């Protein structure tokens, strides 16, 4: 019987399981890979991502660390330099601030300051995002902020395929890669190919084709953009929806190609507005796509507040589908 790759049945899983499968695959494929971080082992991962992996791979491969974000991130850098392929899990981006020095001052600079001698093949995964009423210290979306740093790459898998596939691509990268998993996505489910193809992290992806406006988004916001596009389509407005996938380096080309066609762009971003990755995208369109624009690029970002606990306030702080629809309509028709 011929069970070729093409014919394999798709499998149904959640985003959480997709990440877990990616971890499992990496741990199986390469002995140098190990996962370390707070509660990745006995607890099963703060979000249950690594559940069962300690039992499957043992405590040398799945290492619970004490609470010391700077210490174990630094140890990850060292282990990478020592020939391992560590996957460091920082529970969420909120706590990664304690490791910011190691990420920026060591991981990101090491190759350059050593004149090309030492690269750091380190992968750091973190949960990110708001929307779960976790309030001001547990709801940051700082992936765009990290994208400011040369020397690292920043990935934001939105789909099950990307959650499943990006980890391996990141592990094959010779340089430090940060992967941000929006924790709202963990329960998302669907079908993916049982034999996932390698995921390209160099290109943004058009997730929906359209002609009237380009909606630029990434991670959880992608689905808000797609929802908005559906509604807009019912009113005859065809939105093209782009999933950035990688925030550093940005794939300008895909964006500009789309805008050359639609002449309008809206960026949806769960980070705080000022100094966000959406600002960078807008600035690039200014520089390279100005003459293609019919109207100014707009941004729909999180309100510039530390995230409040109350649900109605938090939702008011986050980008919403209704706002996207309203903004696009205004851009297309010229009035609210």
């Amino acid at each position, binding site marked *: 019987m011929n069970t070729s790759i093409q014919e394999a049945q798709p499998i149904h899983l959640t985003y959480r399981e997709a990440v877990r499968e990616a971890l499992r695959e990496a741990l199986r494929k390469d002995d140098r890979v190990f996962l370390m971080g707070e509660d990745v082992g006995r607890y099963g991962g703060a979000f249950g991502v690594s559940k069962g992996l300690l039992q499957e791979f043992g405590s040398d491969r799945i290492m619970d660390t004490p609470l010391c974000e700077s210490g174990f991130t630094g140890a990850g850098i060292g282990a990478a330099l020592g020939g391992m392929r560590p996957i460091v899990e920082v529970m969420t981006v909120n706590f990664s601030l*304690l490791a910011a020095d190691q990420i920026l001052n060591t991981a990101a600079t090491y190759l350059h300051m050593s004149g090309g001698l030492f690269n750091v093949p380190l992968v750091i995964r973190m949960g990110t995002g708001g929307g779960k009423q976790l309030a*001001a210290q*547990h709801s940051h979306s700082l992936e765009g902020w990290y994208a400011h740093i040369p020397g690292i790459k920043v990935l934001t898998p939105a789909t099950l395929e990307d959650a499943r596939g990006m980890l391996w691509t990141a592990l094959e990268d010779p340089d430090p890669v940060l992967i941000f998993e929006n924790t709202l996505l963990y329960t998302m489910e669907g079908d993916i190919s049982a034999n996932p193809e390698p995921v390209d992290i160099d290109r943004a992806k058009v997730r929906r084709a359209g002609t009237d406006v380009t909606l630029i988004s990434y991670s959880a916001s992608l689905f808000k953009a797609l929802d908005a596009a559906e509604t807009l389509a019912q009113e005859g407005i065809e939105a093209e929806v782009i999933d950035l996938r990688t925030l550093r380096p940005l794939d300008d080309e895909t964006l500009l190609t789309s805008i050359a066609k639609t002449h309008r762009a809206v960026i949806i971003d769960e980070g705080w507005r000022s100094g966000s990755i959406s600002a960078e995208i807008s600035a690039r369109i200014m520089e390279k796509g100005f003459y293609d624009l019919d109207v100014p690029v707009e941004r729909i970002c999180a309100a510039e507040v530390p995230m409040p606990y109350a*649900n109605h306030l938090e939702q008011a702080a986050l980008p919403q589908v209704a706002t996207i629809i309203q903004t696009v309509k205004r851009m297309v028709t010229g009035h609210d």
Partner: protein
Amino acid sequence: MKKKSGGKPESIQSDTSQHLIELLRQMLRIRRFEDKCAELYSAAKIRGFLHLYNGEEAIAVGVMQAMQPDDAIVATYREHGQALAWGIPMKTVMAEMYGKQGGCCRGRGGSMHLFDKERRFYGGNAIVGGGLPLAVGLALADKKLGRNRVTCCFFGDGAAAEGEFHEALNLAALWQVPVLFVCENNQYAMGTALKYSHSNPNLAEKADNYGIANATVDGMDVLAVEAAAHKAVDIVRTEVKPFFLECITYRFRAHSMFDPEFYREKAEVEQWRERCPINTLFKTIQEKGWLSDTEWNQLNQEVDSEIAAAIAYAETCLWEPVEDLTRFVYSERGAGV
């Protein structure tokens, strides 16, 4: 004066009995309040992270006995116990968990960020270890301004692995500031047992290393905690220097509402449950005959009605208007300090 077998004058005995009953009442308030919170969580009235103090009540209640009204408290995300024991009205705590305007932080903080300005309750810090330097700074301010106040900082065993813990202890010792570090050693940081967090699991020795006076106490025994806290606070207040009080305890419930508790044995939890600080004190009081069944029922009813009133209050509170979303990012003109 009538004497009792122990030889104590009756008034003192009755003071003691009243005091013990008060401790019991405080612990019970916390326990019941939190049990209710767990229910309300399932009912989706409370959301976000909810970290219960179940099993650890003796620490907050015991320590607070030694504090004075103008002292300050710095706590963690597991701070309902401290908030209630310190006197933040239960109804504003409950309304905060509901995310209502009538909450102690107008619904912006939630379970992990309870604050009270009048009572000098400085949160509610959900970054593990993050409150320690802040407490040192509060104590520094008191020392600089010549105020004879104590800052009491609660944190867990897991926090002691963070570098900031060390930085804070070193600063406190160098500056000799009046801060009481209370380590709630419940032996787990989420799912990570003490031995996996610390190469040397004796946490009080860490304080020793900085030359900080310290003691370790049974955190399941409110009277022991109270006595140790009195000694500790005395030293902090009179000698104007830090003290480190380690309380050995155990959390009966999961780390948060999301924790499947893979990392510990049911039997271990059961063993510790037998040392429940509330039961222990209840038995002591009962043995002394200081609490009749009627009184005990009445106490329970009081607690229950306080909780019911808190819920009723929270239910009726308004939501903060959405238009006010961006308030309190910066101080409002004229508000200032």
